[in-house]
């Protein structure tokens, strides 16, 4: 079976990516990588922790979900009538796993032998739901432990406490795993309802990378999906609450057993929801430049703060942009959170007044390009990120050309727009006792 495909070439990386459409409407991407021992495949659905209210056309009624369903479903797919899915991968020498984010759930394996068989196991288990009262109940205990583990984790807590402060209504403020109480409300019926909506191939995509023949991977996929006899699915309509531009509260504090206070400053991006595709990615690259010029290890601020013993080498800043939310987070461990926050906010104001120079802009641009190329050593990085970008209607391979396009003035304009003191909040973890 030879199928037409679209070839996506990247001259900088010297890579060729094969893009197939597989009936009933699923995207399949194959990136051949010669010389690698490992083959890595992921199967992802556009269903994450924020998708908690939805309907399928032509339904009128929305379904509301308790927090943590996408993650719970991820756990439960690893068990079916035949037993534990890990055993099937293990018998083939493959290593399997899965993860759930705000916007997607991804199932994955890597192997160095018997790819076709492992690939079939991946496609099959994700397409075979099996939920019973008893298995759901047992999983509540396991995930309960996962939640407790994160409850003791200072970096996880400082992060979610900040999102809870920045957002008033958007579900990104809720923990991906939910709470012990919310997962107690999950039933097999609810899981089936979500499964039948979000796990239709038209809402999913597959990415495979390794020393492989793209046409063969296509055939394996097409045959597998054809045998499942899918009916077309109506359009999925997701509903998100209106999010005010103001933050919910300026400050969150929690006590935990830690050696030093931990502080994150966050800024809510209220413009990102009007952007999509290439423009969204452009904003992401611009923000990466802004943050690196403000807080990077090669700039004055970082070195002064380090010298003044206000930060350690884990201090950093990050920007996240999805199609309906976005935020900046800056921070780390510090002996003096108040002074650190003042210095951070001061540096942002100074940049708005004093600007940045060509040398800085060019140097950071080179750094981003080099870092991007280096990351392409990792098959996991390529697959995971390609689909994450794809689900935002953007393309990981576009980065070098976007990096060429952007101008210094845009960086400054974005810093002024997006690091607005009015939309900031501070999250603090303080040493208990």
């Amino acid at each position, binding site marked *: 079976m030879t199928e037409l495909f679209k070839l996506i070439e990247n001259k900088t990386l010297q890579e060729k990516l094969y893009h197939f459409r597989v009936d009933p409407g699923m995207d399949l991407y194959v990136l051949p990588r010669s*010389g690698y021992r490992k083959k890595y495949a992921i199967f992802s659905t556009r269903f994450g922790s924020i998708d908690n209210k939805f309907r399928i056309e032509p339904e009128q009624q929305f379904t509301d979900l308790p927090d943590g369903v996408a993650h719970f479903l991820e756990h439960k797919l690893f068990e079916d009538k035949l037993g534990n899915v*890990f055993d099937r991968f293990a018998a083939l020498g493959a290593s399997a796993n899965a993860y759930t984010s705000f916007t997607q759930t991804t199932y994955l394996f890597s192997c160095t032998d018997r790819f076709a068989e492992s690939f079939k196991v991946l496609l099959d288990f994700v397409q075979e739901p099996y939920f019973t009262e008893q298995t759901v109940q047992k999983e509540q205990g396991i995930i309960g432990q996962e939640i407790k583990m994160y409850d003791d984790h200072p970096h996880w807590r400082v992060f979610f406490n900040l999102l809870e402060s920045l957002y008033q209504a958007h579900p990104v403020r809720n923990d991906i795993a939910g709470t012990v109480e919310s997962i107690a409300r999950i039933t097999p019926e609810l899981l089936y309802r979500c499964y039948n909506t979000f796990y239709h191939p038209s809402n999913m995509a597959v990415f495979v990378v390794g020393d492989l023949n793209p046409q063969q991977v296509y055939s394996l996929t097409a045959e597998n999906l054809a045998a499942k006899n899918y009916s077309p699915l109506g359009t999925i309509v997701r509903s998100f609450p209106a999010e005010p531009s103001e933050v919910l509260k300026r400050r969150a504090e929690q006590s935990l057993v830690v050696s030093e206070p931990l502080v994150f400053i966050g800024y809510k991006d209220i413009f990102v929801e009007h952007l999509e595709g290439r423009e969204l990615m452009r904003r992401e690259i611009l923000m990466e430049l802004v943050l690196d010029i403000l807080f990077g290890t090669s700039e004055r601020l970082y*070195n002064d703060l380090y010298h003044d013993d206000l930060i350690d080498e884990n201090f950093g800043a990050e920007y996240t942009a999805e199609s309906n939310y976005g935020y900046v987070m800056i921070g780390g461990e510090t002996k003096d959170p108040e002074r650190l926050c003042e210095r951070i906010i001061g540096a942002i104001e100074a940049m708005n007044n004093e600007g940045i120079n060509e040398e800085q802009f060019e140097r950071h641009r080179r750094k981003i390009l080099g870092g991007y190329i280096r990351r392409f050593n990792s098959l996991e990085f390529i697959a995971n990120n390609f689909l994450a970008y794809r689900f935002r209607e953007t393309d990981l391979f576009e980065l070098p050309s976007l990096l060429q396009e952007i101008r210094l003035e845009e960086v400054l304009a974005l810093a002024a727009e997006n690091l607005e003191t009015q939309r900031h909040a501070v999250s603090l973890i303080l040493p208990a006792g």
Partner: protein
Amino acid sequence: MKTDYLQYSLPNGIKLHFMPTQKFKTISIGLFIHQELNSELAALNALLPSVLEKGCRLYPDYLTLQRKLENLFGADLSTDIIKSGERHTLAFSMETAHDRYLGENSNLLRESLAILSAVLTDPLLENGAFSEKYVKQEKSQLVKDIKALLNDKATYATERCLAEMCTGERFGVFRLGKIEDYDKINPTELYQYYKQLLACNPVDIYVVGDLNKQEVLDAVGRFFNFSRDKKEINLPATEQKAARTEVLSLEEQMSVNQAKLVLGYRTAIGFKDELHCALLVYSGILGGFPHSKLFMKVREEAGLAYYIHSRLERHKGLMLIAAGINYADQQQARAIIELQLSDLTEGKISDTELENTKRGLVNQLLSRQDSPSQMISFHLDGKIGGYNYSFEQLIEGIEKVSLTEITTVAERIKLDTTFLLRPAEGGEQSDD
């Protein structure tokens, strides 16, 4: 694909290991200075990479060095201190994108080696000592790092178990030493120690990437040809010790939600032991994979834990089992864990468990060949353990492991120390 290193010895005794390969988008360099792990030297060793990285004569402060690296397309220079068995290794790594992808007439191999050489062999000195400012600053950072062990509760529990288990042994020394060790260190003494270390201790340089043999030899030869002592010192091997006769059981209370259980075992099987591969398979069957006994029984069947696994310290011959559980479930979890160990001793291992574990281990080994840093650390492990297994040798060894060998391993494994981090009484427990 062959994964062998071309090996050379520089005139000053430094060993160069070069792997030509077209697989990667990068040029990767690792430089390692080996020292023994002991309580007197631990803080000095930990401090050196941090101080060296903060400033050298050519790049006298961190900002200048970082700008230089950014202009080399974000070359990444990182330093570390590795505790492996009873070795303490100073690590310097450099990774750049390969020139081929940059569309510029650059020579990133030479540039990288020049920077690495500047950092290591031409440090910033004041009156024959390291810069006082940097030494003070890095001492303070490392003291913070030692205190920060508390922040990750699983790591904290593991380190506490190991420290108690190996009190009085060199392995009992923490990777960063003790807080009080740092008070005593002064910049002069630190520099004298460093000179001696660089002159007398074994040094390995690794280069991995699509490069020409001659250009690598020329560049390394040019930048690392400093004079050293004629004779390198011999570092002591990691010692094995028998498990204590009565198990040491420790508990610590803390204001946490989840209890962390760590069980420390002595395997009496070292890195070069003929049962090395059998030990890998043993620990794999017990708790190395999601198909392993511990994961299946404690997590999947009893639903008591989210994470539970067994891990090996292959040089010292230790095995640790770690789990996050409800304190109230502690006894039940312990009972299930002990049953799995006794099943292994009695040879209650299905063909499927044995085969799947072997395949999983082989898959892990082959997968390491797809990462330059893993290729380097694999070989470095051999240098530390005193024997360089090849991938082929380990794979063959694993495939040949018999049930009898696994039960022999099981008989040698003895519980030594248990550590339980538990929620404080009357604290914020939400256990049911």
